[in-house]
């Protein structure tokens, strides 16, 4: 069927199951926007800054388990997406970003709003394309979606020159995609499964270390089954939160720099570490030679380059987490060597030891009379939403308090910029999450610093009637950097004091949203309740204890057992 490139673009999105895209128009993509007016099954969300479009698409994709889509114009539109793309790349988020480009005859000419976005984003995309010929348009879009959602997911960028979009193309029905050079391994090697399972049976002090891969591959249930079957304690990375129920007795909470005392102690003392969809990031391992020093390590990951990258692995398993853990469960179910009761007994001492660590240093904070503690706010959010809200975060202390104190029980409920650590992620992500799940409660746990990095999206939230709630933990500081300065730089607070700040209540009102403020602990619950029953975008401004720190904390470069405690 002959049609315009712009028509084919919309048709391809629809055929890929896309319902919502986030974007911002401009000269190079004006034809696409013209065509979007005719697209009945496609909602376009007009953001106020292109970075927000990408974070929103990221969150939309995470909540739905689908590919998020963003559309922006050439030049500055394209460069504004770079932070969002890099964040999605670090967190392995399936996403396709379409950028406009100047007409092919002008490429390389330093034309108006021309930038080599394919060159710029090469290191932060799974793959990217410049579509130079009209006949390549449709196959490229299809391949981009295929790459984004399969294997280790990631962002794919497609650069669309204006003349390519405007030319006539021949639309044909999609066929299964075959790529000569790209064949991700989903099924684990049976020999490795057996080897891993036999090693698990021998372990006296095992720990499951669960990362974002468990969430991407929808492996939460199978991982939970494995943990319960063998009575193995589970710790999660920031990206893995919700991959195993956080309130389960087997949960150790998060590990790493701001992980729990008992998670870090368990990993440091375990004799077997089973890493599932995690990548041994420096924030997790601390000083590498002191990380799980006495443990055998099993590592399940779909990306071979993740294996033995930072830590030498004893039993690698290149596979999709869901497939691999399912295979392990099946092996135990059919093995005559496995006896659930014996496994429990074998781990009893280990559980006693962990219980002792939990009692000695539980996750906590010191209450301080009439001052609001940020941890208390997050606890209250958890309580009043029954632990069922979708929580997004900015980056810094707010992110860590949300991770520590909102005990996530289900996957796809915690959206954060884990690898890149983008301040300004949480609010646009909350909008994306709300578009993906209109009936759910979505809360951005923010700081007064980071919320200002994408505050302009209040207009987007209002325009699309997203009743997202923003909980600002307001300490008038760039709190995490201030905490480092307090601990490691003799309390010299270099440029971390936010001396001029907006009145967030009035700011909300200026956009037609609702602003609420709490200045003492007794006001926290009424403010949250009020926000939750308001069918509008709400900013909750919690004036918190100014110099509260995030603890436990492993100072950078130290062993994870060298924690600073509350």
């Amino acid at each position, binding site marked *: 069927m002959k049609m315009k490139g712009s028509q084919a673009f919309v048709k391809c999105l629809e055929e890929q199951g896309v319902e919502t895209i986030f974007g911002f128009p401009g000269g190079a993509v004006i034809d696409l926007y013209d065509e979007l007016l005719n697209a009945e099954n496609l909602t376009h969300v007009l953001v106020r800054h292109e970075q927000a479009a990408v974070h929103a698409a990221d969150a939309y994709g995470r909540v739905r388990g689908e590919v998020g889509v963003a559309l922006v114009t050439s030049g500055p539109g394209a460069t504004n997406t770079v932070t969002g793309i890099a964040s999605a790349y670090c967190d392995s988020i399936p996403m396709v970003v379409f950028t406009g480009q100047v007409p092919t005859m002008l490429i390389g000419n330093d034309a108006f709003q021309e930038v080599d976005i*394919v060159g710029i984003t*090469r290191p932060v995309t799974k*793959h990217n394309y410049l579509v130079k010929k009209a006949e390549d348009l449709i196959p490229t879009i299809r391949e981009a979606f295929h790459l984004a959602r399969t294997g280790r997911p990631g962002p794919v960028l497609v650069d669309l020159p204006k003349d390519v979009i405007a030319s006539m193309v021949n639309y044909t029905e999609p066929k299964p995609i075959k*790529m000569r*050079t790209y064949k991700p391994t989903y099924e684990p090697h049976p020999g490795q499964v057996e080897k891993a399972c036999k090693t698990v049976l021998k372990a006296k002090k095992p720990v499951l270390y669960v990362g974002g891969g468990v969430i991407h591959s929808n492996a939460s249930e199978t991982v939970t089954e494995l943990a319960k079957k063998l009575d193995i304690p589970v710790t999660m990375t920031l990206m893995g939160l919700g991959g195993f129920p956080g309130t389960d007795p087997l949960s150790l909470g998060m590990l790493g720099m701001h992980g729990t005392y008992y998670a870090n102690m368990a990993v440091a003392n375990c004799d077997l570490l089973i890493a599932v969809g995690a990548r041994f990031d420096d924030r997790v391992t601390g000083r590498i030679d002191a990380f799980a020093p006495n443990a055998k390590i099993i590592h399940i990951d779909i990306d*071979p*380059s993740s294996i*033995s990258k930072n830590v030498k692995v004893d039993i690698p398993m290149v596979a999709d987490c869901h497939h691999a853990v399912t295979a392990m469960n099946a092996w135990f179910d059919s093995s005559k060597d496995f006896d659930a009761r014996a496994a429990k007994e074998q781990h009893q001492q280990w559980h006693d030891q962990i219980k002792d660590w939990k009692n000695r240093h539980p996750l906590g904070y010191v209450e301080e009379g009439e001052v609001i503690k940020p941890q208390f706010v997050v606890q209250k959010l958890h309580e009043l939403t029954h632990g069922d809200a979708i929580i997004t975060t900015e980056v810094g202390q707010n992110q860590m308090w949300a991770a520590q104190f909102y005990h996530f029980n289900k996957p796809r409920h915690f959206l954060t910029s884990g690898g890149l650590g983008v301040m300004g992620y949480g609010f646009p992500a909350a909008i994306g999450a709300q578009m993906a799940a209109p009936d759910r409660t979505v809360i951005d746990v923010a700081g007064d610093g980071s919320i200002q990095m994408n505050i302009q999206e209040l207009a987007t939230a209002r325009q699309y009637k997203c009743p997202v709630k923003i909980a600002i933990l307001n300490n008038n500081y760039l709190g995490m950097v201030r905490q480092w300065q307090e601990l490691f730089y003799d309390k010299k607070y270099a440029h971390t004091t936010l001396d001029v700040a907006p009145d967030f209540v009035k700011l909300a009102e200026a956009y037609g949203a609702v602003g609420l403020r709490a200045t003492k602990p007794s006001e926290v619950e009424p403010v949250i309740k009020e926000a939750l029953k308001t069918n509008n975008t709400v900013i909750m401004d919690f004036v918190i204890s100014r110099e509260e720190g995030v603890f436990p904390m492993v100072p950078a470069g130290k062993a994870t057992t060298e924690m600073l405690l509350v």
Partner: protein
Amino acid sequence: MKHTISVLLQNKPGVLSRVTGLFSGRGFNIDSLSVAETLEKDVSCLTLVTHGDEAIIEQITKQLHKLIDVIKVTDMAEHEHVEREMVMIRIKAEDETRAEVLRVIDIFRGKVVDVSPKSYVVEVTGSKSKVQAIIDILRPIGIQEIIRTGATAITRGKKS
């Protein structure tokens, strides 16, 4: 340790920068690099020489493999192979040295590919050490310019 890695890749625009960008971005070294098309028109072979410990070489091969346009990655250290490099040298060759230069080239089984009244251009192919050896020997005579291709390599045929 030095490794020669052979990479088959789809001959698409920007593919070379994907490879070199990977090396610079991840802090890997490239000692030399050569690339040209293969029997298949849309497939190129890139031979690169790099160095690093076992873990680094493992990462290099895995990261190369992860690039979507890469078809195959071969670490030549794991195979019987033949490795060659070519050098072209423009060397001063005046009355008193003309014969001496020719003798040296003959020993190295090189060829003179350009002659002018005061210089020769010679071509020598061989292992990296052989190429280095002729450069070292000719240097005192007066090398004006050299150009080296970097190593390229092919696996040997099966013995049986």
